[in-house]
């Protein structure tokens, strides 16, 4: 652990309007592992996740202090360039939102805006990512069909492929399976587990069983604070903190 972690959060405070959403967050996200952020709804899970790639820039009344270091670079520094930071992180949101274009163009969108124009290279990239998300065999004959024609589970995998195509190092998942059926959920969960060889993955989830199935580490957030952080088994089966114990047992939700 001598190497600097991909994401390191130092003294992060987030206010939205008059509310103090996140309070003095300090954490190093483990590399090449799946880390789940759990906690009751409204505790600040999603806020924490979105502060990793500055998606709060688009929202009114948000004030952020402290540091988020991505590969040692503070993304909230005044001179930070946000598009290249975001490129390092793929985001998988609650529901799939395919771009209004074909399946192929969805995956090729990211590489194209980042300057890849050669058809050969794009073809190869698209195939590679669609294979990585297990979608290739299902869609290879209709790459030019509109992405909205896919089933919702397929759409979510397409969105994952789209995110992977820009070559991120980190994947952020914001309750990425909450809109999906059990079969698609299982596929996505398996994908997360296989992808951790190459990527550091951070997931927000409110399903404890899911956190247990997929993650190596767990961050428990309550009322805007990190209560406990550690390996999955330890946090879920043998929590140190009273609050974590109550949450895991289902007393707080």
């Amino acid at each position, binding site marked *: 652990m001598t190497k600097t972690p991909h994401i390191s959060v130092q003294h992060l405070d987030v206010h939205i309007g008059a509310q103090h959403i996140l309070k003095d967050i300090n954490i190093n996200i483990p590399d090449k592992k799946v880390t789940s952020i759990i906690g009751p709804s409204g505790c600040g899970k999603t806020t924490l996740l979105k502060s990793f*790639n500055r*998606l709060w*820039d*688009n*929202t*009114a*009344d*948000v004030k952020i202090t402290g540091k988020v270091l991505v590969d040692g670079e503070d993304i909230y520094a005044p001179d930070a360039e946000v*598009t*290249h930071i*975001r*490129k390092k*992180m*793929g*985001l998988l*949101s*609650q*529901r799939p*939102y*395919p*771009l*209004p*274009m074909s399946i192929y163009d969805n995956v090729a*969108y*990211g590489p194209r*805006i*980042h300057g890849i124009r050669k058809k050969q290279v794009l073809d190869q990239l698209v195939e590679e990512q669609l294979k990585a998300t297990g979608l290739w065999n299902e869609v290879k004959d209709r790459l030019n069909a509109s992405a*909205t024609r896919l089933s919702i589970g397929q759409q979510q995998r397409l*969105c994952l492929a*789209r*995110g992977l195509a*820009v070559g991120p190092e980190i994947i*952020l998942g914001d309750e990425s399976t909450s809109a999906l059926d059990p079969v698609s959920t299982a596929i996505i969960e398996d994908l997360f587990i296989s992808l951790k060889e190459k990527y550091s993955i951070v997931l927000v989830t409110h399903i404890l069983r899911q956190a247990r199935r997929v993650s190596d580490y767990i961050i428990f957030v309550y009322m805007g604070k990190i209560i406990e952080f550690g390996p999955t088994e330890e946090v879920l089966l043998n929590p140190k903190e009273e609050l974590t114990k109550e949450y895991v047992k289902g007393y707080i939700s």
Partner: protein
Amino acid sequence: MRKRKFEELFFRVLMILATIIVSGSFFLIVGTIFFKGLPYMNWDMITKTPGGGFYIGKEGGILNAIIGSFYVAGGATVLGLIISIPVAIFINLYMDGKRFLSNTIRMAFDVLFGIPSIVYGAFGFLIMVYFGIRASLLGGIIAVTLLVIPILVRTLDEVIRTVPFELRDATLSLGATRWETAKVVLRQIRPGIFTAILLYFGRAIGDVASVLFTAGFSDNIPTSLHEPAATLPLAIFFQLGSPVEEVQGRGYASALILTIIVLIITVLADILIKKFSKHKI
């Protein structure tokens, strides 16, 4: 108890009557125009420009005004879009963090929308005098463009607001710039833009007060931006003012033509809106 029941019934009947009057007024208007205009309709009306003595009841049609109206409304819609699309994008994608400011701008456009077209006409006239432009196609297009900008901006703004935030987050998190995100958003709302174009083309084609001072009037089809251009509403207005019965009748027929054009546009827009809302994610 009986009084309560009676009151309920009474107001129910009143409501149905009011609804019949309000929605029936549409049929009354279109019916009147058809009834009076149809006898004077003929092929010449839409295929010929006014001949000599047209305004005392001789040969000709109002092709000049039909074409003129399409030029003015088309020019204004295109020019209006070129200005409104960037404004709508700016309010939505570049001012997200400043809600107070963007809402103030929205309100300013709402107020601008409320300004009557005669004021736009008068103001357009002032601009023309200032720049030394004579009453012409160009003048008409400028005045009508001013008229349609506020409503175009607000419509596009509303359409863009229906695009889910997650779609923007999706492109942004791929490392796209705001402009690249805007292009995706525009793609998403393309059907909405078409609807807006149709609706405001319809509004632009029917407005008189703004072109009254600015477009002038001519019996010829304009061949350049600096020539005066006839417009349909003005042609109707002038012909109706004539004491000659034949000319008045042609005024009714012209009104019928304008009504048909506008109805077709409105119905098309309505169909598009329905289609659009069906395919939204």
